[in-house]
């Protein structure tokens, strides 16, 4: 399993397309920084195929006041969970 991080909002940047193209079937995607917007019901569209493999960073949601608005299909992890994901992943790719 590879972990892919994305830090740009899908409402603003098209870079998420590269992340999705690069993801194998068992890879996970973690939304950090502005990308946490992608965990909101209104903006989760591009990530809908990632059921169970879509993560979003809790601290970055909280800072933006968005924790409560998060879609059920995004798994909220804190920065410890982020590190834990990097432990499990063979490689970490960063899309920005």
């Amino acid at each position, binding site marked *: 399993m590879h972990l892919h991080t994305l830090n740009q909002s899908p409402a603003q940047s098209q870079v998420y397309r590269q992340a999705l193209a690069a993801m194998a079937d068992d890879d996970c995607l973690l939304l950090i920084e502005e990308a946490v917007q992608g965990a909101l019901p209104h903006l989760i569209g591009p990530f809908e195929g990632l059921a169970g493999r879509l993560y979003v960073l809790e601290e970055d949601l909280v*800072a933006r006041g968005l924790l409560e608005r998060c879609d059920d299909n995004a798994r909220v992890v804190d920065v410890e969970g982020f590190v834990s994901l990097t432990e499990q992943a063979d490689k970490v790719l960063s899309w920005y």
Partner: protein
Amino acid sequence: MNVNKANEGMNDSNIAHTSITPPSATGELLVILGHAPHGSSLLREGLDMALVAAAFGRRVSLLFMGQGCWALQPGQGEGALGQKGTQSTLEMLEMYDIDNIMVEAESLERLGLESSDLVLSVSVVDAASVQQAIASHTLVMNF
């Protein structure tokens, strides 16, 4: 943001200049805020600029567009490691008599934000009003 700190380097001639120029009745400066808080410091630095202009007696309007609309989301806090957010700055706008605050309707809709659930009392405006606001201010700055 701390206006005094931002003005540390201000020299006397500039203060003299601004104090002899009376503020005009309608907006002199329109600050357009188009970047999200937290992810970059552009929005905060744009707000700092607006507050300083207001502190110097300029009549300032704000327009939130695109990602800038996220500044109006309630319940924001500090960022990673205590990185300052913009909420405290937004709370200072009233004190500085910045009360013409607009947000573009289509941006709100694209992001899924409800105009009834924003931290400030803002006017939701359409594109035509955005264009009017640009036309009716002496100076427009994008942040």
